[in-house]
Structure formats: C-alpha cells, structure tokens
C-alpha cells in the first residue's frame, strides 16, 4: 500500500529534530501542520512574516488579517511573532530556517529540483522557493512519484528549469522516503508492501538500498 498524503507528511515530520524552525511550501507540505509533534518543539515560519503560527483556525474563528504563506487562515499560539517581508527573508537567507518542505514537479539524484516553471510557460511561480532552497539548512521535498501519465518525476537530472542546484536532502513520495546521493536515490524506507522493483520501474534514476 503506497502512503497516503497524510502518511507522507507524518513520515517526513519524523525527520524533524527538536527545536527546529520549519518552513512549509504551498500544497502538500501544508499537511505537516496537522501532524502531532509529540515532545518535539517545532516552530513554523511563513514567508509573509508569521513566526510560530499554529493550526488552521476553526470555522468562524478565522482572523481576516492572519494567513500563512499558503493563504490559510492560521492561528497564533502564545510565543508567536510578526515581522515584515524583508526581515522574514533575512531569517531565511541568514540560515535560521532548519528545514523547508517544498512541493515540486521534479527531483533529481544530483540533488537539484525544479518546481517553478512548467514546459511552455513564459512566466514562473517562484514565490519564496529559490530563497528557501538556497538558504535553508535542509531541503525536503514532498511529491508524487510519477506524473499523471505515469512518467517518473524522480530523475537523474531535471528536465525543467531548476529552482536550486545540489540542495535537496530528502524526498518523500507515496512509494517511500529517499535520499538523493548525487548519482542515485538511496532508499531510506519503503511504504508498506512497496518493492524495490516497483520503485526502480517508477524512477528515472538509479535506486540503491
């Protein structure tokens, strides 16, 4: 059974260390705010300057002035703080973010990834991804293993324009948790019932145990 998206979020969050400051990209990574962190103290940072935000607000208790970087109406538990955009990205650029979790179109064994521009698009969807990818201490990707037509999204090298080069530490997909080593994807864990052969068939780069 491949992992569901909440299971992917839960598996990736297990890699967070106590005390980490975590930035979550748009889409799948936002599921991580629903994962119980147990005894670990985790602080969520959003590009729009919200530091230490909490879960999404229950319906009827949203604050019109308070969104995270994915436009979700979140909450501010005790200890939260607000800064402006320049200070928020100063925190990113100066290496204060322990991990950024980003969604992506492609991840490569050479530790590049591509998540800002699709084929044939004149414009791009960069947001904070290039700053985060270049400067966070760790870059984790959360993605589907294949495209809708079944082509691999995990490749030896990206086919789309890259977001950053050589920055990816970990990749979680519905099939498992993988570490790009430069030349291959090393399996850290497979989802229950998923075989190495299945992963190899679905991956456009060497896969090692």
């Amino acid at each position, binding site marked *: 059974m491949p992992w569901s998206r909440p299971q992917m979020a839960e598996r990736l969050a297990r890699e967070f260390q106590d005390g980490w400051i975590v930035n979550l990209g748009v889409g799948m990574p936002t599921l991580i705010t629903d994962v119980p962190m147990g005894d670990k103290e985790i602080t969520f940072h959003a590009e729009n300057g919200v530091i230490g935000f909490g879960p999404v607000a229950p319906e009827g208790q949203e604050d019109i002035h308070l*969104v995270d970087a994915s436009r979700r109406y979140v909450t501010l538990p005790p200890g939260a703080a*607000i800064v*402006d*955009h320049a200070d928020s990205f100063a925190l990113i650029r100066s290496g204060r973010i322990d991990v950024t979790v980003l969604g992506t179109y492609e991840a490569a064994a050479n530790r590049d990834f591509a998540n800002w521009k*699709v084929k044939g698009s004149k*414009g791009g969807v*960069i947001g904070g991804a*290039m700053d985060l990818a270049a400067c966070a201490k760790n870059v984790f990707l959360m993605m589907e293993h294949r495209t809708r037509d079944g082509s691999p999204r995990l490749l030896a090298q990206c086919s789309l324009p890259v977001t950053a080069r050589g920055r990816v530490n970990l990749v979680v997909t519905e099939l498992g948790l993988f570490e790009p080593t430069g030349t291959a994807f090393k399996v850290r864990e497979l989802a229950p019932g998923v075989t190495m052969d299945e992963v190899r068939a679905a991956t456009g780069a060497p896969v090692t145990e």
Partner: protein
Amino acid sequence: MARRSKVVADFDAAVAGIEDGSTIAFGGFALPGSPFNLTAALLRQGAKRLVCVGNTTGGPRKPRNPDIGMLVENGQVAKVICSFTAAPRASDVLPFTPYYERGEVDAETVPQGTLAERLRAAGAGVPAFYTPAGVGTELAEGRETRVINGREYLLEYALPCDVALLRCYQADEAGNLRFRRAQRNFGPIMAMASKLVIVEVEEPILPAGAIDPDDVHTPGILVHRLVHIPPAPAAIWPTLKETR
C-alpha cells in the same frame, strides 16, 4: 507647531496626479495588506505605461478584487515585477498571462526574498547586493555573480519606486502606520522604497499621538496621503470566503 493634514477626502483624491510611466509598489500578500480601494481608484484615474511591483499580478481567484491584472486588462501597464508571473496551478491561467504571452506587457520574475530585499535596499540607500537565491538557475543566465567566502552569489539591484499603494489597520494624522498581523508583509519596505506613499486605512484616522511611538511600524515622515476606508458596500472589504 502647525501640522499639515495627510488625510484626503476619498480614494480618487488619494491617487490624483500619479503620472504615466510611474513605478508603483502594491502592498499585500494574499488579502492582508492589499490596497484594493486605491487600485480601483487607479483604474479610474487611468495612468498609463506603469511598472507594477508586487508579490503577484493577482487572480485567478473569483470574485476578483482590483489588482495588477486588472490594470493590465485596462491597458495601463508596461511591465510587472513579481515573484509569481504564472498561476500556481498549471491548469489555471492568470488574467495577466495572455497579455504577457502576446508581448503586450513585459515581466520580470523575481524570487520573493530578492523582491523584498531589492525594496529594502532601495529604502536603505543601498544600490545593489549579492544573494545566493537564483544562483545556478535560468534567472542567473548572463548576469553578474561573485564568489565570496567560497560561495557563489548573484548581483541584484535596488528597486526604487515612485509610488507605494498600501493598506493598513491604523494610522494617525501624522501618517504613522500600524499594521495588524500578516497585513504588515511588504508594507514597511515599500513605504521606505517609494517617493509617494498612499495608504488606505481600516480604522478611523487617529489623532497624532494615539499610536504609541514604540508601536509605529512605518513612521509618518514616509507617508504622504491617508484615506479612511468607508464601510462596505461603498468600499472594498474582502471577506473570508474569498480565499476559501
């Protein structure tokens, strides 16, 4: 001591005199801080060949609020400088996109932190800076980079603006601004980067001194025109359901 009032009567008075060819910074990240009423007034005012600076061009969400994309549709824009120049979902199309694809509007796609720092640098009198964001990507092709302490950085220039259009929670008659929650985002740095700062204010304009000096996010010396936002439906007050 005499103090000239910065409060103007309405949104149209607030955007009066914005010239063709101006570079305009639009505050806001999603709904919080977005100057919808001033943008609506700029659509009526009609200044042309504008360079529009903001996080996104707006859209494709519905109902649409006045945004850079509407100024594009209105034939007022020469160029946009944004961190999003395509729709986050590949299946969506921004209102701005067909104009960009036909070459009627130019665009510069900038990493969000670089956009923020280019504004901060302009407001701080710093002409350029080096950043690691974008190194090794298509954005860095043909541009100046430099290795400092063993790491490669990309040269980025300050982004001074003629006008900033902002929305904030509270202001006093001296022009001191206080934002609320995530509304702050680009507001303070766009005010620093711009020669003419125009602000739509959610609460009634307070007497000078009503905001404690320690709580001022943007000092009044940077702010030129304030308009109090009248209640809906006379003015735009976005509601929660618009981003749900």
